[in-house]
């Protein structure tokens, strides 16, 4: 049972309170109609799958219900840092 630090609640809470939300820092295009099919496919489906540091979204679903971002190591499952939605990813994190 991993403990995850919610940057809004500012508490370490058990992972069952959270849901995973996929790769972070992928913004929905402001004008989807302007994208060609390949670009839309890239937005919709293409994700990084790093062995190591991964920037990803989590939601404190059974807590404050807020979405936030995290840098997690996909090998060790260690959370390096969690930060609020809208904040910059720390340097070096896989995008």
């Amino acid at each position, binding site marked *: *049972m991993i403990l995850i630090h919610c940057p809004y609640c500012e508490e370490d809470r058990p992972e069952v309170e959270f*849901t995973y*939300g996929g790769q972070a820092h992928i913004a929905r295009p402001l004008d*989807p*109609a302007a994208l060609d*099919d390949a670009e*839309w496919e890239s937005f919709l489906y293409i994700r990084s799958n790093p062995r190591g540091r991964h920037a990803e979204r989590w939601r404190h679903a059974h807590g404050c*219900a807020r*979405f936030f971002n995290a840098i997690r190591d996909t090998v060790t499952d*260690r959370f390096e840092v969690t930060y609020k939605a809208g904040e910059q990813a720390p340097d070096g994190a896989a995008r």
Partner: protein
Amino acid sequence: MSGYRLARGGRIDRNRPVAFRFDGRDYSGFAGDTLASALVAGGVTLLGRSFKYHRPRGLLGMGAEEPNALVTVDRGPARITPNLRATQVALHDGLVASSQNRWPSLKFDVVALNDVFGALFPAGFYNKTFMWPRAAWEALYEPVIRRLAGLGESPVARDPDHYDATYAHCEVLVIGGGIAGIEAALDAAQTGGRVILIDDQDDLGGGALSDAALWPLLTDLKARLAGCANVTVLGRTTAFGYYHQNFIGAVESLTDHLAPAEATGPRERLWRIRAGEVVLAQGAIERPLVFDGNDVPGVMLASAGRTLALRHGVAVGRAVVVMAAHDSGWRDALAMAEAGVTIAAIIDIRDVVPGDLAEAARAAGIAVHTGCAITHVSGRHAVKGVTFAAAGTGPERHIACDAVLMAGGWTPSVHLWSHGKGSLAWSEAWGAYLPGTAIENCRAVGACAGAWSLGSGVITAVLPNRKPVRAQKAFVDFQNDVKARDIHLAVQEGMRSIEHIKRYTTNGMATDQGKTSNLNGLQIASTVLGRPVADIGLTTFRPPYTPQTFGALMGHHKDALFQPVRKSVIDDWATAQGAVFENVSNWRRARYFPRGGETMEAAVLRECAAVRNAVGMFDASTLGKIEVVGPDAAEFLNRMYTNPWKGLQPGRCRYGLLLREDGFIMDDGVSARIADDRFHLTTTTGGAARVLGMMEDYLQTEWSDLDVWLTSTTEQWAVIALQGPMARAVIAPLVEGIDLDGAAFPHMAGREGTIAGVPTRLFRVSFTGELGFEINVPAHEGRKVWDAVHAAGQAHGITAYGTETMHVLRAEKGFIIVGQDTDGTMTPADMGLDWAVGKKKPDFVGKRSLARPDMDAPGRKQFVGLLTEDAGELLEEGAQVVADPDAPIPMPMIGHVTSAYRSAAAGRTIALAVIADGRARIGQTVFIPMPGRVIRAKVTAPMFYDPEGSRLNA
């Protein structure tokens, strides 16, 4: 082996005899015995049959590593536990145990013929042989193999025991209660923090319990431990898994060691422990030696022989031969000799052994043969003697004996270390992997860290022998019957990685997870491949360390607590009416209300007719509900749903269709605009949480500029759907503050007022095609309003209906149910819902995906109706539809049936389906092949009743 109780010694209480039964015979042991030690003391040699060859097997080890002596313990009706290691079953009065995997009896086993034909059963045998014909696999091969190659039988009755579960937190958790573990706990206790010490045995001490010289130290350490108020000792507790962030799962056995009459309270307790630091002191497990005949009952680990003698006061035999490759075998032999066991000889593969050991052995009158190896063990059900030779190939000599002890060196127990993803480092000195770098805040101490002196030795693969390996019955994995020759064969057949060798031979894949076999297997593979062990890798250790009961893992989460059932406020009423219920996501919903001995079919036809002809009432409280509030509420919904929302006037309702960003239908529901800045949204019963989560996602992460608040109100409202031509007449006397007249309150209008004196949001909506209302009232008033409506409806023949009737009525009108008629790959156009897509809207979730070429390509499945040629024929939901039933197999499938019912209104069966280019096939005949026959059906529009919709606006 003819074991017996030594006249003195051991940590047993000879004043407390304990009576027990094994395989139907009465035996007696002493308090402090395990089932294994008491059986050996009673002269029992044969304790089980092996998994594949059904070879006779005796005891190998003395703890968690035991692969052979698996027993079934019977604690009374429904309290049967298979596959327990006899070495870990504490003896108590009235214990009833039996051996496993033998038929008809342990001594005479028919399937042991497998062993005679052993050459027919090499590695990969099952994979290679039982392949063809395919049908025979299910009918013959699998059932027979399962019967023959098995462990104990699972209990079939419900487990009457209950199991406790708890959490604990501590600064330091020590796992393993040997000397190293106790000392670590005492050190940690000095800091004043909370310390927990876990040990799996009945008595703290680990290996020291088998070493009388350490008993005074042990007594002292235990006394000091008892003096530490901040140390909690959990005995009879197995730490089975090491998870992230120092989270440890452990099971404490509470009553299995007690006589049945004394066993009260929960049977086991699951501990979930979060520790600041974890100290692993799991010790080491002795390694067998691999030689011809090393599995004959009576051949066991030297450490087991020592434990039997020193701890339990039991001699393993009357003439014992020790086969050693390690100093510890000599020390065990000497300790046993001192305890009164007759050691006939010590054979050591090494030419030179430490002088003090050889000297001590000679002084004890033990014959010593260095530079020699056992080449054969005689006896089948029990050891009769051994043959040995210099370097395994010299002239053979024979010694009569009834027990053989193997001392092949030690394997530090790194299981939990590996669960915690700590790295491992190969140690030449140990011939084993030792803990390397930890990821968690964890350290290893004592023997499991390689920091304990057990002497030195050599690591061998297979003992030298004149006979080729393939002619030897030299076992590596005792529980899975893997021989040295199987590993040779695997390498010969091209396996290179230990992960492949493991799976091909099943070495280390039994319930003991290779505690005694992994490293011998590695060593043999390394020798055959001519590559260093560290190059071949190591298989992964995974929880649980030893098998655990489902009961302990489940704890209190059973019956009503397994998964909470959500009930609406009308549930009591429905129960009193004799409703038949069904589960819809977590909700319990009334499916139909049978009268007298009515079948479901009869009840549903009656309920349907009542709604169409008079009026019916339905508990729709489970619908998901979200209150959307804020100045940007309409803009937000406009971006989420396919249809336009900004122009919707307060007091009006609209059907909303929600897509995922990939353009496929996710959910739907009717929503009302209560005010400019307030919407009352509904979702499907099962989709509520998903929809709210998705909306929150967009609101928080994409459109955080919008000023909107979402609140789940599913539980706040009770919803009564009142449907049928008499619906208005039923509620007219109850409603105040709303003009119910058709012109003032048309279809898809929503009003606020009171009903039966209760504030209501009254919507004129219909999921049946009839005049209808959905009465939303605060949940705590729901039952009161339900009763008032039901009473008022009596004059109009009101009938309560359930979800099954609701399904039929909506199918007659072709209204979809998301998740039943759609499957996550259907677009609005596929489902004929194009009208609900706002063509002029610049964007909404999923819009861009709908413009992909494949989303309106020919050949997509489309939503249609099906009418079977035989009007009484009810199609099966999920049945596949084909265009040509005579096409060769595999027949091209063009779609499937999504819904099928008997319709009172249509006077026949109806069905809905999704079929490739379905709308172009309307009027054509399609075919639904079923076992033994083919059903013919005509494709129709998905509409079977009142296509003009005149009843809706009545």
